[in-house]
Structure formats: structure tokens, C-alpha cells
């Protein structure tokens, strides 16, 4: 599906990013696995054919600019950017420090902004391609204790729409991917806090809402579709992969 394409995946050493990178490589893409943790990026890249690991702090513009420029220099082009790197916190709005809020936004929103800003022209210069931003269904509905995360993801969806319109004439499609609750380390880390804070059994709640946890591979399948020419008329939209969670009011 992605033969001959060069793709960058930020936050690619673990979780959803890693699953997307693995799938892209399996589909024939040359994958630049970018991660804050250089060692983890390289280790992940070694598991794939034709991939490389690159250190990148998506909060730093110089890092993101170099990530994109380096990919183009070494591989001659850039076709796909997956702006995936993200972090999460758990806690009520009333107890969230401004510092923590800004720190989360610097990764989840600034990071996606910088990736779109720098990858857009590079992809356009390669004749067009696709940007996939990693949002979340928390962009569409509230979840107590996840305000900073949800707000950052809603902003990512908004940024995606405007960037799509600006880049359309240059052949660059921009779409947001909105997973439901996926069985990632990120969710596992917050599980106890969420269960205690919300007074729920997460497994039970998700069974009802989305038929259980989604898998990382489930998200990677949609990410592959959005990066490929199979979705050539889609841009500026949010693609939900959530087992029906947002389809139901109750």
C-alpha cells in the first residue's frame, strides 16, 4: 500500500506510533522512527526493514525542522508525516497546575503544529502526500480527569482542518485519527487513577462502550489507509476508530 514512500512517525518507539511504523514498513515504506528517546527509536527501527531511528523532541522547532530536512536529505523525499508523539495526564481541572497544562500542550499541540508546519512544505515539494495527526475521541466528548489531554486533541482536530484547506492545492492531505481506548502502555499507566477517580471498572466500562479495548494494530490499519492513495479524496476530516464508543449516547 505504501511502496516507495518515505514516512516519518513521531513518538514511533512505543505504543501507537510504534504500531504505525511497523505497519508502514510492512506496506513497503521507508520509515523514519522518531522519538524523544534516541536509543529506543534506533532499537525499534532495527526491527523493521529499511527503517531508521532518529532522536527528536517535538517541542523544539529546531529538532522538528531537522527531522524533516534530514529525512528529505537521506531519502530524497518525504511523502507521509504521522504527527503522533503525545503525552497524557490524569486529574481534575481544578487541581491541574498551569505548568502541567502547558507542558502537555507543548508536546501534544506545539509538537503537532511544528510537524505540520515543517512537513507540509517538504511533502508538497515531493509532489504531494499525506499528514496524519494523532488525535483521540476525547476531542469529541468529555472524559472527567482528562481535560488537558482532551483539549489538546480537540485542538489537533481543528489544526488538521485548517492545514488541510491550506495545503490542498499543493497535493498534501491532512487527516486526524481519533482512536478510542486502546490497550497501550499509556492507558495502562493511568488505569488505576482513572478507575479510582471515575469510580468505574475500566474493563467493564469499555466492554459496554466500545466492546473492549482496541488494539494498536487496529489503529495502524486506519493509519495505513489514511497515508495511502486509497484515501485520495479525504482531507480535513477526523477518522474515528473506537468500536462504536462515540456512536452511542448511553
Amino acid at each position, binding site marked *: 500500500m505504501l511502496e516507495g514512500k518515505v514516512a516519518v512517525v513521531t513518538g514511533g518507539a512505543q505504543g501507537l506510533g510504534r504500531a504505525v511504523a511497523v505497519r508502514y514498513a510492512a506496506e513497503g515504506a521507508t520509515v523514519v522512527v522518531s522519538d524523544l528517546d534516541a536509543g529506543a527509536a534506533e532499537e525499534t527501527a532495527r526491527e523493521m526493514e529499511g527503517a531508521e531511528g532518529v532522536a527528536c523532541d517535538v517541542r523544539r522547532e529546531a529538532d522538528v525542522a531537522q527531522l524533516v530536512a534530514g529525512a528529505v536529505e537521506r531519502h530524497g523525499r518525504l511523502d507521509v508525516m504521522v504527527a503522533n508523539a503525545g503525552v497524557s495526564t490524569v486529574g481534575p481541572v481544578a487541581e491541574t497546575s498551569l505548568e502541567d497544562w502547558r507542558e502537555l500542550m507543548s508536546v501534544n499541540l506545539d509538537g503537532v503544529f511544528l510537524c505540520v508546519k515543517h512537513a507540509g512544505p517538504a511533502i508538497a515539494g515531493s509532489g504531494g502526500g499525506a499528514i496524519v495527526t494523532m488525535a483521540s475521541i476525547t476531542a469529541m466528548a468529555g472524559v472527567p480527569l482528562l481535560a488537558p489531554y482532551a483539549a489538546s486533541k480537540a485542538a489537533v482536530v481543528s489544526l488538521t482542518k485548517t492545514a488541510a484547506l491550506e495545503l490542498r492545492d499543493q497535493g498534501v492531505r491532512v487527516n486526524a485519527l481519533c482512536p478510542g481506548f486502546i490497550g497501550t502502555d499509556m492507558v495502562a499507566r493511568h488505569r488505576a487513577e482513572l478507575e479510582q477517580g471515575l469510580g468505574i471498572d475500566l474493563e467493564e466500562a469499555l466492554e459496554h462502550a466500545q466492546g473492549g479495548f482496541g488494539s494498536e494494530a487496529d489503529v495502524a490499519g486506519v493509519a495505513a489507509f489514511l497515508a495511502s492513495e486509497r484515501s485520495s479524496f479525504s482531507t480535513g476530516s477526523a477518522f474515528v476508530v473506537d468500536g*462504536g464508543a462515540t456512536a452511542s449516547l448511553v
Partner: protein
Amino acid sequence: MLADVDVEGAERAASELDGDARAVRCDVTVAAEVVGAVEATAAAFGGLDVLVNNAGVEISKPMVEHGDEEFSRLLAVNVGGVFMCSKYAVPALAEGGGGAIVNIASVAGLGGSPLLSAYCASKAAVIRFTEVCATELRDQGIRANAVCPAFVGGAMVDRMVGDFEAATGQGFEDVVAAKQGRLGTAEEVAETVAFLASDDAAFVTGAHYVLDGGLTAALL
């Protein structure tokens, strides 16, 4: 299995496809014909895995000029047909361990468009109907999703262009270029339908996937 009220057209189309394709007459507003189409499919191929609810009609004229009966007729095909086919396909889909329903909705189900009052209402109904099906059918392993294309090149758009230009005073091509970059193609819609029917979309249900060149992303 190609199901159509125009069974000769369906047979012609089936003969042009690679693989084992067949045709059956089906008026999606008639329960007996829908049941017959599902049974014919199961008999011919040994089961049913995917239902694409595509049959639909359009009316393009001002709301006050929609005829009372033609309005009802449109809803009967565009919404009633989706209901009818989904309802009668579920047992066959479930029997095979699950499957996928893909409904052809439209961006007209997400926002209003002049002259398309009945059509817009019908496609909005299809999106909502899809969401309920997804929730109700999940435990049977059946996923239900919708696709929402913007204007796609083809007979339906050809029929509408004159009315659209007369009513809005805008050139259709200009509107398409400004709002969605270009016309979509039927093949592009087919790719998204194929994706939603595939295992890659295993965790996608109750969703509506938009292919509109940015039309619904824009405010202006």
C-alpha cells in the same frame, strides 16, 4: 451480488466484473425482494459477509416544490431501504460469524445544501441509523459504518448541475473547485467502502468516514 431494480443493468455490470459476480432484482423498499436478494446471495455463495447499502435517489428543487409523495418516496428508498436491507441481512451476516455493513451516506447528511432538503434529511438519518446499528449489532460481530462523499462525478451530479446553477446563481464547477478542490470519483468512494469492509477496519464501527476534499472542514 449486484442487487438492483434494473436487473438487466445489474446483469450487465456483473458480467464485466472479474470473479464470480451475479445479479438479482431488488427493490429495497419491498421486504419480500430484500429477503429474496439475501437468500439468493447466501444460496449462490454460501453466506453473506458484507452489505453495502448504496441504492438511493435524489430530488433537487426548492423545499416548497418537493411533492408530498415524492418526498415520502425518497425517504422510503434512502432511509427505508437501508433499514430494510440491514434488518434482513443481519441473520445471514451473523450466521457467518459477523461481517460489515457499509452505508452510502453523504456530506449532505452533515450539512445543508440548497435544493436537497429531502436528500439531506435522508442522509442525516442514515448516519444516525448507522450509529444505532453499530451499537446493537456489535455483540454479533457485525460492524456498521457510513461513508460521506462530497460531489462525485457521475450521473447524479450531471442531473443536478442545471438546477443548482439556476437556483444559486453560482457556477457548479467554481463551487466544486473552491469547496472540495475537484469532483471525487466513484472509484475513490469504492476504496473507502472496501476499506471499511476489510479487517483493517476491525475496530471501526458506528463511524462515518468523510471523503470530501476538505468541504466540511471549511467554514467559508
